[in-house]
């Protein structure tokens, strides 16, 4: 058993790290604006394509590719906020309308990528080559980097929203927009900030994933769905709950694949999801509203 268990746990950790990066970006926008960004996966894909173009086509190296990929995601995120979310502030159906506009944005970006880059598979080089030994199991250095980087990014985000002025203003706007405005916080600017930051997280995930999977226009769709399951499990309320749920789901997925095989894992995950929601409508770690 030992020979299988450790690699499974490592793969669970890797999945959990990717989901945590994705889901924390979704949760950041949700807690600040009450908008669920269905284009989050497409932003990730866009980041990966731009990084590939700069790294491979223009030959400027991986570092430049990373910066360009993340930057492109941020710009696209801010544009989405300005054009597709801002016009609907204060609308009674804002949550529903923005689901549709961001869904449309994801279609536009994904199809746009198909038109520009075509259907051929692409891949980014790895940040670090070679292998690392974790508890006797060989793991690629790149995957180890993701496993280490994700908690670091989450910690940085936690520090930022808890300790800095602008980070705290994000939380304040999320909890009470009127009160935030009345202590002098520029609410619309804070919205742009939230979208930009979240898109940066999507970009980071995209460029990291772009070297362990093939880059296709649908690169972001799969992780987005898994990140959605994470936020349903964890509730959308807090960063801690979202991160916790990400690792729980990542581990569950890896263990289910080990025990039941790839065939039944999605169905079992979904049944578990329904069961959780029947008994805890606000998620596994979510608060039950009074």
């Amino acid at each position, binding site marked *: 058993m030992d020979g299988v268990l450790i690699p499974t746990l490592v793969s669970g950790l890797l999945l959990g790290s990717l989901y945590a990066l994705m889901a924390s970006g979704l949760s950041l926008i949700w807690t600040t604006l009450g908008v669920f960004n269905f284009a989050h996966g497409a932003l990730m894909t866009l980041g990966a394509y731009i990084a590939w173009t700069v790294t491979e086509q223009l030959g400027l190296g991986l570092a430049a590719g990373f910066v360009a990929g993340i930057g492109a995601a941020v710009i696209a995120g801010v544009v989405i906020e300005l054009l597709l979310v801002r016009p609907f502030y204060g609308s009674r159906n804002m949550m529903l309308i923005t689901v549709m*506009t961001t869904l449309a944005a994801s*279609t536009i970006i994904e*199809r746009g990528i198909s038109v520009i880059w075509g259907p051929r598979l692409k891949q980014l080089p790895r940040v670090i080559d070679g292998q690392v030994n974790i508890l006797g199991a060989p793991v690629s250095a790149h995957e180890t980097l993701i496993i280490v980087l994700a908690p670091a990014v989450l910690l940085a985000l936690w520090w930022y929203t808890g300790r800095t002025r602008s980070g705290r203003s994000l939380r304040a706007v999320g909890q009470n927009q009127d009160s935030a405005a009345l202590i002098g916080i520029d609410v619309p600017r804070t919205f742009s900030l939230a979208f930009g930051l979240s898109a940066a997280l999507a970009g980071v995930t995209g460029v990291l994933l772009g070297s362990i999977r093939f880059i296709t226009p649908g690169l972001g769709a799969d992780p987005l769905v898994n990140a959605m399951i994470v936020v349903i499990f964890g509730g959308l309320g807090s960063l801690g709950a979202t991160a916790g749920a990400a690792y729980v789901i990542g581990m569950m997925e890896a263990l289910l694949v080990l025990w039941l095989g790839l065939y039944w894992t999605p169905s079992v995950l979904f049944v578990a999801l329904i069961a959780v929601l029947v008994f805890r409508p606000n998620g596994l770690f979510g608060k039950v509203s009074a």
Partner: protein
Amino acid sequence: MTRTQRLFALAALVLLAIVPFFVTDSYTRHVFIVAFIYATVAVNWDLSLGLGGLFNFGHVAFFGIGVYTAAILTTALDVSPWIAIPAGGITAAIAALIIALPVAKLQGIYVVLVTFAFGQLCLQIVLSQGDLTGGAEGLVRLPYLTIGDYKFIRDFKFAYYYLALAILAVSVIVLLLIAQSPFGKSLRAVRDNPDYAASRGISVARQRVLVLVASSVMTGVVGGFYAIYLRVASPEVFGFSIATLVVSMVLIGGAGSIIGPAIAALALTFATEAMAGVRGMEEARFIIVAVAMIVVLQVAPGGVVDIFGRLLGSGRKT
């Protein structure tokens, strides 16, 4: 539903019924059939989304379930297509009941997420259960419809055209009846003011379960028809693109109006089919539909029917 609207719906039905006598080429009839199929999915979605105010984003999965029910029954179990098509309605209703369990209790965005995730998980299951579903390649060479020796594909799809139109007409008539019934009014009440509705004896959770199941039946049936008509089942039916296309039909047509989404479905299907014929537009047409939906949401959140309503001075929909 005013008298004018009822007359308009009747006139439209008569008009569509005589179309095959003027349009005789197989391709144009095919576009009509596909448009009727999309329209059926859209109007049924409008029942839960527009009338019920339930943020159900898994509706297209009911369609996909109908598609795969008919495909699996006819290929693996040799069931007659005449039974396989309605069977799609039954499996879709069962799926709706399962998804309704958590959805009845959930609020806001969680309804969107769970229903959306449901659709994506259907896709995952179809992909992983390749022995039964054909995996990513899907199922092909389904049996076609016949009555006695008459094959529906003959006479330039003449019979398929009327069957598709009949499914759409039944859907629209049933939905208009539902909209005018106490049940339909209770749905609008729950949508607009759930607290007030509950305080008048309406169980919000129960109406949500009912509306999900009601909207799934004809959607599953038309899914079964789609599979039999095209003689294939492919996992694409669970994808983002079809969901975005159909939701844009509901929105552009005007959510909650039933007739509006039907009109929008016909118009959008013809528009996208026309664009598909232009080189370089195969991908871009989806972008254009997405942009059109955003524009409608910005300038006329009530959709096209709302615009007509304002032009005619009646002010309010239905």
